[in-house]
């Protein structure tokens, strides 16, 4: 098992795990921040912290993804300090420029993503943080109740109730915001983005 090998110090195995799961964590971090570049940095920080925590956490393959989402949730929340620590590590190893312009063709799409996600986060800001976490994991990242519970360290029943309340409140907030309130939502989303 890759996670067993990684836990025993097999760096190559951890590299395979990174390739396998980085995309999921990247999209999760983006949806919590509305910033693709930042999401990339946060993904790297999440995996470095995951590596360092492997010796401490009892880890089975089925718990690996919740572990990553749990770490990513904290990294997003503590992003200022997490990034500083991550940069202390990663800046030793310069990231070379790539010739291939990755984003060139997709720039417009990704810009649209950022605008849309900022609006959504603006609504999201009206929810308690506990409900934001559960909604982001279950609805946006399609984690099962069990995995979300493992990621957040809470009972499954709590995941269910937070999800139900969060969905209801989000819909109420959406109804209340009305169709002409986009500029207001944008202003609030910036606040969320800047936490």
């Amino acid at each position, binding site marked *: 098992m890759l996670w067993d090998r990684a836990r025993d110090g097999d760096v190559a195995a951890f590299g395979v795990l990174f390739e396998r799961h*980085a995309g999921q964590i990247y999209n999760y971090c983006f949806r919590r921040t509305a910033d693709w570049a930042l999401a990339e940095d946060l993904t790297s920080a999440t995996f470095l912290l995951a590596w360092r925590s492997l010796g401490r956490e009892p880890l089975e393959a089925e718990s690996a993804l919740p572990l990553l989402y749990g770490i990513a949730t904290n*990294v997003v929340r503590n992003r200022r300090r997490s990034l500083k620590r991550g940069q202390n590590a990663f800046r030793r190893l310069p990231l070379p*420029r790539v010739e291939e312009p990755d984003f060139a063709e997709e720039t417009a799409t990704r810009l649209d993503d950022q605008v849309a996600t900022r609006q959504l986060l603006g609504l999201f800001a009206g929810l308690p943080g506990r409900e934001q976490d559960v909604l982001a994991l279950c609805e946006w990242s399609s984690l099962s109740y069990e995995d979300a519970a493992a990621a957040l360290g809470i009972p499954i029943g709590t995941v269910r109730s937070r999800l139900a309340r969060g969905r209801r409140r989000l819909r109420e907030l959406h109804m209340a915001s009305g169709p002409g309130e986009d500029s207001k939502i944008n202003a609030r989303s910036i606040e969320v983005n800047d936490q």
Partner: protein
Amino acid sequence: MSDRLTPTPDREFPQSRLKQRKEQLLSQIQAEQRHGLRRPHGRRRLTLAVGAAAAAAAAAVTVVALLPAGSGGPSPAAAAVLNRLARLIVAQPLTPQPGQYLYIESRNEYPTFAGGTACETVAVDRRQIWIGTDGSGLIRDTTGPQQYSSPAAEAACLQADSQLHLRSGGTSNDWFAPQCLALAPTNNWDSLSRDPHVLLQQMRQLDGGPPTPGEDFVHIGDFLRETDAPPAVRAALYRAAALIPGIELLGTVRDHNGRPGLGIAYPSRGPYPRKGSSSELIFDPKTGELSGEQGTGPTYWAVYLSQKVVNQLPGAPPAPLKPPCAKGGAGYGHQVPGGSVMNGAPVTSP
């Protein structure tokens, strides 16, 4: 209507960037392994219950064994100052009673490097924290507009990511239910040894990062800043800092606000932290409190403007808050996966 409630579709992690990121990550991990850092192994769970004399002695020996050869001893002058500061801090009355809060206000500026390593942006952050004796509280962040740190940084940012969005700033309030607010790697202060040798080892275990003197100095800062560590623990942390090889006494320095303080620095000779980088902790010579921080590689600063006991929060959370938050309630970085489930709602500023 549902469009605005639906997240955007998954996008691919750009393939070439993924490859780069992987190489960077694995290089970092391999570098940590080469330097004798603890690597993942077995199914041990960290225990903090290091109380027995035998364990303490063993841990002290371990710390010494992990120090790199040739790193020399601690600076006698710096150690003397830290030990004097320890005697000062232990007498500070910053101990809230039940129903009271420790209030800490700071301003700081940490760079971020979104989009590439040369793409440096900065934003000044005013941070206010209320920590209750029951682990409840509030973090209020008022962030200024994000800016490029230099014209060269701006050029690098735009080259790395032409879509980079600079944030305009704002205020957030994060409320925490009892046992849910923990800003240090642990807030179980009773579990930490007052023996500085043992304490250094415990901090290494909690962090899981490189066991080097430079990282030990980072840990000291992590436990001191914005925490409700009681005076006796703070004193032990100062005495632990006094043991770190390579620390230097800077004498009287000025923090970012121009206030004088006693500076203790760790100029790194590498590899951890990065060679050439430097971290300074600045202490109030009268009270012994941590009053500021600054460093280079990357450049950052923080000034602690107010640390006092107050009788109430500046308002009420927008909704009733209830534990549980998470395992042990630790809310710091990677210490516990999902460690801090924020039990409260971010609300907009007044």
